[in-house]
């Protein structure tokens, strides 16, 4: 399992054009990605999509790709509210829409966790400390070691 990216998908009983509208229209984005108020969206590569997250601040995500109704991506500085997303402070969120029998398969990939530094006290759920850059790679490598160790009866186990 890679720890640098999250991949999820869902089957939706609606045509890609309809899913695209939900993904990109301010009123909808405000609901699935914000706190309910309409999002501010400049829907073009390089444009900003501003999400109000109430007490957590507002996120200025940077739109990367707009290819209706197939692909939509943006950079999201989830650990840095009130800052504009840059390659240094953000992860890349990529949506892809595939027509399928009876609707659309919507896939999302969020990647680049290993490259960002997560400042203190931002991830309230996890209480993450600053300067965590590079940590996901270690988790992968040590995780692989743990699997080898658990499988091998010859290796001493503490």
């Amino acid at each position, binding site marked *: 399992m890679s720890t640098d990216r999250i991949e999820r998908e869902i089957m939706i009983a609606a045509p890609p054009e*309809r899913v695209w509208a939900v993904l990109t229209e301010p009123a909808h984005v405000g609901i699935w990605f914000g706190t309910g108020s309409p999002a501010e969206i400049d829907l073009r590569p390089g444009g900003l999509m501003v999400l109000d997250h109430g007490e957590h601040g507002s996120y200025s995500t940077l739109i990367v790709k707009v290819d209706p109704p197939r692909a939509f991506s943006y950079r999201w500085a989830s650990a840095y509210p009130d800052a504009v997303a840059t390659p240094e402070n953000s992860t890349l969120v990529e949506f892809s829409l595939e027509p399928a029998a009876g609707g659309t398969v919507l896939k999302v990939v969020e990647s680049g966790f290993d490259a960002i530094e997560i400042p203190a006290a931002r991830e309230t759920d996890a209480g993450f*400390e600053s300067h965590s850059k590079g940590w996901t790679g270690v988790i992968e490598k040590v995780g692989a070691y743990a699997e080898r160790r658990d499988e091998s009866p010859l290796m001493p186990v503490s």
Partner: protein
Amino acid sequence: MTGVEDVLGALADPTRRDLLERLSVHGFATATTLAEELPITRQAVVQHLAVLDAVGLVHGQRSGRERRFEVRPERLNEAARWMNVLAARWDQRLSTIRRLAEAAD
């Protein structure tokens, strides 16, 4: 007992990450062995191992005149769980998107 933030603080240093990975490869190693592989002194290795030991990422056991260290992967699981939290949030968002898309206008 230390928290996830301590684990990540310990991992913030590239030398310590390197040491942890080398320990993963070796299974067990002493500070002397590790220092031979790296452009730093044995004393520096000892200090880094002490930081890793303090947050529970490695475990040292006396063996003759030196301590032999091994990785304790359990502590890293806490950090890995954070990714699961983020993944669960995407599941929630995708469900909301589906509900909105499937709702009649």
